[in-house]
């Protein structure tokens, strides 16, 4: 399974999102810091989940970072996060 798919599965299991997009943006960062041959280093996550209701931006990002801690400690160098509650 690709890093992207692993991340999507983990987010789906933890947040039961109503919308989820995990985009590998590594190609846009070729040659930049942290980029590696084969990509899967720079990701963007768009997630809408009821789990975010009543949470601040920082809390939402921390939730996502915790779910993906293993990936962030490993191959993933950069993660852009857009976390919304339904209806926002």
């Amino acid at each position, binding site marked *: 399974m690709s890093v992207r798919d692993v991340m999507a599965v983990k987010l789906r299991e933890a947040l039961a999102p109503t919308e989820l997009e995990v985009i590998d943006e590594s190609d846009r*960062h070729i040659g*930049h*810091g942290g980029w590696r041959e084969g990509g899967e280093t720079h990701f963007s996550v768009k997630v809408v989940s009821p789990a975010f209701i009543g949470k601040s*931006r*920082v809390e939402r*990002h*921390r939730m996502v*970072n915790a779910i993906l*801690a293993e990936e*962030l*400690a490993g191959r993933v160098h*950069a*993660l*852009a*996060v*857009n976390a919304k509650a339904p209806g926002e």
Partner: protein
Amino acid sequence: MSIQDTIKNEVTSNDVVLFMKGTPQFPMCGFSGQVVQILDYIGVPYKGVNVLEDEAIRQGIKDYANWPTIPQLYVKGEFIGGCDIVREMFQSGELQSHLAANGIPVKQGAGA
């Protein structure tokens, strides 16, 4: 002084601090560069700390805020967020009003 004390001293003795890769003049990472552009645009004075110059700060700042990535923006000692959060707050005008509410001058009319 431990590294955590050093960081705490940095973020409490300066109103606005950006921990970043590179310097405000020469950002070494696109995400750090975006935050620099926003802060420059709204005309707020800030201190840039280049984490690439100090491995202890580079790791220490991640532990300090329990936040795994850089850049990190602090206002009056409070962790505000990374690139995505700063951009969202800038676009909605919250960043400008948060700074103003803390008595930090921003350029008039520096909206999103």
